């Protein structure tokens, strides 16, 4: 509303706002500022901690600006950056392959169970729902991949299990039902188009917002996952980045605990500042990328929401 008024040259901006609006704006700015500070502060503390001398962290705690500035934590990490780069490489690989294949399979499945001419669509949909209600549990799941499919130790075991999820298939089906009216596909059919032509030429182009949303879910899922590495990796060169970091933390705590029962050396464990520097190295690039592509994500979700 106020945008329209702005075009009248005679009206100075300050007068148009009522007191109520101004109070409202002040409060919302304050709230937003507080919110963003809450989000940013921990990250600043991590960054500052990674530049702080380890004994300073332990004796004086964390601070907003690094006391006793040092680069030693980063020197320790980059003395052998091989591991962390390998973990990056693998995670990118899993994310790209998993998201690409997963998106294809989810979209195709979603399309099929959305078609009215598919007689058993309700049965198939139910079977897909069913897996989200009753799962076999962790051990059978593990045995399936490790013993039946024999995938333990292979990279397939890391991206394959997450290709499809009932939730995303249902989401995609809903998108398709909402975005593609029957009339369009019917008219294409009358014109002589087969299923593949209809799907690739007519359905897919209208589906872009849906693809963006499901793709985002998949990609974030792959990027943030560590569990499958934990379960199926037998070699650290196939580890996902998140698992690499998570295991680093776990190793430190586990070994300190173990040291009360078993004789073992605990002197060489990563120090506090090295852990923080690891976190910066691992999350920093993603953070940068995220801030650039974020607007696509946001528009993808909202467009999808309106249409769905």
């Amino acid at each position, binding site marked *: 509303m106020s945008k329209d008024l702005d075009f009248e040259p005679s009206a100075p901006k300050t007068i148009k706002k009522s007191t109520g609006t101004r109070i409202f704006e002040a409060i919302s700015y304050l709230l937003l500022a507080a919110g963003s500070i809450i989000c940013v502060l921990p990250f600043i503390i991590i960054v500052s901690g990674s530049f702080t001398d380890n004994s300073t962290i*332990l004796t004086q705690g964390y601070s907003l600006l690094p006391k006793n500035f040092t680069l030693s934590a980063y020197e320790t990490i980059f003395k052998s950056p091989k591991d962390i780069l390998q973990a990056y490489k693998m995670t990118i690989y899993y994310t790209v392959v998993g998201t690409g294949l997963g998106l294809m399979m989810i979209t195709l499945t979603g399309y099929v169970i959305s078609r009215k001419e598919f007689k058993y669509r309700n049965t198939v949909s139910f079977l897909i729902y069913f897996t989200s209600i009753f799962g076999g549990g962790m051990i*059978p799941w593990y045995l399936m991949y490790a013993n039946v499919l024999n995938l333990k130790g292979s990279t397939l075991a890391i991206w394959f299990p997450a290709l499809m999820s009932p939730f995303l298939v249902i989401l995609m089906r809903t998108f398709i039902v909402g975005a593609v009216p029957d009339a369009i596909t019917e008219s294409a059919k009358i014109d002589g188009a087969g299923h593949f032509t209809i799907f690739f030429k007519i359905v897919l182009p209208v589906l872009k917002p849906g693809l963006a949303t499901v793709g985002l879910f998949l990609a974030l899922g792959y990027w943030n996952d560590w569990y499958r590495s*934990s*379960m199926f990796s037998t070699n650290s060169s196939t580890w996902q980045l998140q*698992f690499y970091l998570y295991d680093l933390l776990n*190793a430190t705590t586990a*070994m*300190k605990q173990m040291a*009360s*029962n078993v004789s073992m050396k605990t002197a060489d464990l990563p120090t506090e500042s090295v852990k923080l520097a690891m976190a910066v190295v691992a999350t920093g690039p993603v953070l940068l990328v995220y801030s650039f592509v974020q607007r696509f994500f946001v528009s993808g979700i909202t467009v999808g929401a309106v249409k769905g």
Partner: protein
Amino acid sequence: MKKKVISLLLSLTMLTGIITGCGSNSSQSAADLLEEQGVTEIPQTDDASGEAEEEAPVEAKELDLSNQVDLVFYVMGDAPQDEEEVEAALNEKLLEKCNATVDMQFSTWTDFQQKYANEITAQSADLIYIANWLNYGQLASSGAFEELDEMLDTVAPELKRAVGETKLNMCKIDGKTYAVPNTWPEYVCNGVKYREDLRAKYNLPVPDSLENLEAYLLGIKENEPDQGLLTVTTEESQGFQTGFDAAWALNFKYPWVANNGLDYGLAANYDTPTEVYDYWYSDDFVDDMKMLKRWADEGFWSKSALSDTNNSDAYKNGLCVAEVAGQNPNKQITAIQDFENAGQGWESAYVAYGETNGVIYPGHATQNGTAIVRGCKDPERALLVLQTMLCDDEVNAIVQYGIKGKHYDVDNGIYKNLQEAAGETPTFPYEGFNTWNLRNGGSRIPQATDVKLQEMFDKYAELGLKTKFANVNIYDGFSENYDSYSAERSAVGNVMRQYLAPLEAGLVDDVDAAVEEFRSKMKDAGIDKVRDEYTKQWISYCEEYDYK
């Protein structure tokens, strides 16, 4: 309407998924997890044929080594960087000696309890590391491992000799041997680590008893009012013995306040283990709580100690002057090194509780051992490989230290990591495969720091000889089966966190009243039932192993 019902159902199931998902993340034991998944008995594969063969006369026999066997050896922790290279060197020797190869697989430290359980259910490993903290006892009695008794005689007599009857007996579950321990007696006796430099500076007594510990801490408080004294939290007290870490110091007074002593406020002296008596309802308990209250009032620990998280580096950084919980000789060695590195002239010393109370013993045999997983491709060959890895000095050295000349060298009988010496990150550190179960007491190459450690061990071994069961840890072999009282058990645990912890942390105004409240809450929680069952199990354990 139908849709609504369905969506409600869906969200409910998702919610339970989330809740149970989180629940299983907590540190449950492997056996618990197995049970949760409905696996009460490990599937037995057709080993009938194997047993039939073994009925042959019990004599050492030559194994048929004509076909190569590839085994998987599952160990805890993270893999060393040079895993493949050392494995190749190891397999070269193993092929030569047993026509077998070993693939080391590592649990990593993430979710290791869960993964350990998976590994056993999936039967994908052949040889596996076992320990009491991985619930060896429960797993063995549910049939997770191969029985070794006969095989030890027929296939691996050398191994049997090296380990010895006593230690093998300690690994017996229901009369059968399922695991082979290492051959290095190791003392993990708890004690007090304190700052010798400060003690000498202010001429304070060595904290070798409750009175002297108090005097030592008071002396430091007087002379250096700003110095932190104890960093104690509830982190080392998550079991069923204590509620607050400072209570471990009572070990000076009672030998049974040890990591592996009895739970639920029960006590049994080392000399008379079958005579179980009560502590929480005794007068001693009230006196001890009053002493802890006095310590708290003196400001030995922070007022927020109950909610603090443990800062395990506090001692290292001079934030406290003594540690009383979860300490052991090896941690003392680490502290000495840390203080040397810090270069502030600090000095750490150690008093084991056992030195004062007279009861000292090495770690239990099941602390570090190896078992053969039921369903192993070739149990006999696996045992032969285990014998070679543990008893053959050449092979053992490769497993434990890597490749001589590349990873390590021996300098005057002392292990020296060559990469560390050159200022690089070691690609295969000492015991790089985390095979604590393959420590060979006879051929072990000590690290420089082990010299001091061995001195401590020798001192303890001498003291241990004077005890009734000379140098035998009678407590740790016991594994409790709490199926019949698990509800009461968790209620007891809650009462301990809620009432015992503040009592032991001295955060109550009136000790007598708080003790009364604690006692009555314990009764309500069903402590009697728990104690009855526990005592029964404990006594039958003592009888089984002849600890009388």
